[in-house]
């Protein structure tokens, strides 16, 4: 099998997602695909999977031009993608999921015995005899659901298999099992495209790596011809040290102290503190309880017990409104659905606070004063927009994030929780967001940054706490912070 995608272009409503991206991969190799968020990795893979039609460029399979017109067509040509969000029907059995295409074939009777037998063979083949083909797929642990997805791809006899950040939802042990499976597939001559943000994985698993940036291919290297540092440089297009602006904050006394916080199974006995002027990184695997912890502190989810102190005084955040009144603001992880009101003007977004000082006693808005205040905040954040009356949805991802921050500045919050602040924004916008966080810290705010981006945790944090399975696995001081140290704590691999 020889796949080559040449000079692929793809634009969405005038915004170019891919401009001349190319990749070449062979059967029997694991090919890493790396790049920043928004570099075009997923778009390129969706073009390959037939989910998007390319605007121009060529795809060749085994030297022959191949026009992939639909997901169905891609499957027929032997291409399967294991997406981050699985496409399993949770209420159907494993066997039905694996052989789901056959359910669409003509005929009335479902050949249960045959389906179960074939599924069992496929699973055994992969070393997962313990999965029962008749169990509803939704009841399986996440790692096993992924196995079912892979099994589904194998039942189609796929020759090209794309993995989109498969280990983001897996534990260390499960990841090891997945790597063994991937290596086995490689031995069978399958061409494996492997998207990941984790440098270590790329270096242990892949034979070759291709880097994308801004929709273009930066280059392609055999894995032993490149080191981690230059790989990062190719991904971000500059030296790592240039990505994180300098911060001149004076770290003061503890501003927020969380003591023995419990809120459901994902928030158990959480204790930590943040000082004024400090940026505290919160790391851990997806599903380690980081977001749940922040939501509990912010009053968005009920707290069972535990204490929260602000500047030494005990506070209760029974609702987000109370948290804001106490001076705590949170930027949720899902910017588009939770952080910003996309259809409403910037001005309304900026003043979406429980206590708007520009409301008269009768409940009417004092327009002149409000506009002046919002414009001043926008200037302070260097917000790029054609005015404050345009809707937030028309802005770029980075500027939308700034709009989400505006309301906490308006509410004069002293503790700011950023949950995955730079997800889905380009490098330039990232630097802008880091700068805003720095300025908040310099102004004496305590900043908590939850992030899955290892580079940004290392580059931005004064201190890091790592969560694992709803608990704090450990804390790293500035000089202790490294990718290895964080991953060891996050995965629970004992030294």
């Amino acid at each position, binding site marked *: 099998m020889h796949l080559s995608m040449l000079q692929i272009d793809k634009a969405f409503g005038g915004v170019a997602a891919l401009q001349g991206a190319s990749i070449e991969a062979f059967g029997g190799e694991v090919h890493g695909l790396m790049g920043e968020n928004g570099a075009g990795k997923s778009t390129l893979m969706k073009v390959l999977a037939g989910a998007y039609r390319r605007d121009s460029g060529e795809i060749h399979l085994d030297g022959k031009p191949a026009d992939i017109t639909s997901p169905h067509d891609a499957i027929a040509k032997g291409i399967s993608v294991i997406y981050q969000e699985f496409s399993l029907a949770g209420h159907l059995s494993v066997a039905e999921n694996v052989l789901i295409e056959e359910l669409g074939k003509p005929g009335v009777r479902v050949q249960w015995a045959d389906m179960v037998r074939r599924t069992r063979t496929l699973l055994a083949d992969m070393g997962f005899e313990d999965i029962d083909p008749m169990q509803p797929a939704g009841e399986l642990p996440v790692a096993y659901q992924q196995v079912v997805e892979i099994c589904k791809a194998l039942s189609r006899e796929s020759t090209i298999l794309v993995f989109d950040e498969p280990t983001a939802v897996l534990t260390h042990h499960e990841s090891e099992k997945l790597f063994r499976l991937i290596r086995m597939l490689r031995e069978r001559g399958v061409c494996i495209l492997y998207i990941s943000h984790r440098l270590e994985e790329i270096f242990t698993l892949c034979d070759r790596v291709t880097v994308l940036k801004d929709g273009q291919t930066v280059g392609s290297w055999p894995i032993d011809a490149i080191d981690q540092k230059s790989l990062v440089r190719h991904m971000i297009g500059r030296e790592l040290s240039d990505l994180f602006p300098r911060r001149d904050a004076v770290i003061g006394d503890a501003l927020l102290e969380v003591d023995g916080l419990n809120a459901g199974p994902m928030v158990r006995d959480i204790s930590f503190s943040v000082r004024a002027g400090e940026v505290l990184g919160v790391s851990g695997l997806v599903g380690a309880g980081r977001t749940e912890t922040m939501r509990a502190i912010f009053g968005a989810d009920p707290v069972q017990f535990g204490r929260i102190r602000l500047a030494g005084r005990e506070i209760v955040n029974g609702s*987000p409104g*109370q948290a804001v009144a106490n001076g705590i603001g949170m930027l949720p992880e899902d910017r588009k659905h939770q952080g*910003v009101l996309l259809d409403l003007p910037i001005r309304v977004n900026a003043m*979406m606070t429980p206590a708007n000082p520009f409301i008269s006693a009768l409940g009417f808005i004092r*327009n002149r004063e409000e506009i002046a205040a919002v414009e001043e905040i926008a200037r302070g954040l260097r917000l790029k927009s054609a005015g404050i009356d345009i809707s937030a949805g028309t802005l770029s991802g980075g500027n939308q994030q700034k709009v989400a921050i505006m309301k906490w500045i308006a509410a004069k919050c002293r503790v700011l929780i950023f949950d995955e602040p730079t997800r889905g924004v380009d490098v330039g916008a990232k630097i802008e967001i880091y700068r805003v966080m720095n300025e908040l810290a310099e102004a004496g705010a305590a900043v908590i940054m939850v992030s899955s981006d290892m580079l940004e945790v290392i580059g931005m944090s004064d201190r890091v706490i790592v969560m694992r399975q709803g608990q704090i696995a450990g804390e790293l001081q500035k000089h202790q912070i490294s990718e290895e140290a964080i991953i060891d704590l996050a995965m629970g691999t004992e030294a």
Partner: protein
Amino acid sequence: MQKKTGVATFLIRYNIFLMLALLVVASTLLSDVFLTPQNLWNLLRQLVPLALVSIGMLLVILTGGIDLSVGALAAIGAMVIAMLLPYLPDQAAVGLLTGIVAAIAAGALLGAVTGVLVSVFRMAPFIASLAMMTVARGIAFMMSNGQPVRFPRDTGAADLMRAFGSSAVPGIGMPWPVLVALVFVVLFVTLMAQSKFGRLAIATGSNEVAVRLAGIPVARYKFLVYVIAGGLSALAGVVATARTAVGTANTGFGLELDAIAACVIGGALLSGGKGSVVNTMIGVLILGLIGNIMNLLSVPAYPQQIIKGVIIVFAVLLQNVSGEAKRT
């Protein structure tokens, strides 16, 4: 981004106003009587209950809800005022005002029940208001055992009520109910554009999760819109009674559907967050005009319903087209 010519943009942005203008022109051409002050004032007077109910419906729709009980609450308003008239104080104006306030309060109270079900108990608005619709209609029928309640002959309040329903503002010929509707339109246009309440109600419908995470007590606004819709519906019932001088439990039957249609023709999104009072009023006028012109042309009642349905579909299709055009 594709550049459209000025004319196309204009047509798309103001399509609903153009549709109204088109209907006016067509009606004028089709019928000699259409463009007479008497017909026009009469038409507007008939539309006042729908206009009031539609404002309430729009507020609810803006928060992402729906209120099916508005027609039944109009019946509550009609019954309360009609049954109170004989007992109101002697002073006509004070007496009538007391009665109207009582009717509005009854509507608002029942609306508040729906509001609590939706905001506190997180019940689906469709279900909560469907239940309120049958309950309120049942109460309206029970109030007089299903009998129509005629206005009393000899009280000042009843006479004033009849006058309110049938006479006009001296000098300009505008019927009093139309003036009342106009006041409420101006009030709610201002409220939605310039007040904290309006801003947060729209924001809630636009993205409830984001508003809640901004620390705003979302439930308060989701509750308030049903109270307001209930009060306005009862007032609509009062106005409807004034015109006929008799209160019946059938008042406002099916009014909720016309109100939803008016909002949607006016470009409101049923998922919330988008809609305007002015455009909704245009929607009311379009619905009214369709009925009026068909009556003037003596189109029989059954085909009228079909034509009305088809026109609603086209109006909404047009809104979708313009919505798409604005987004790209």
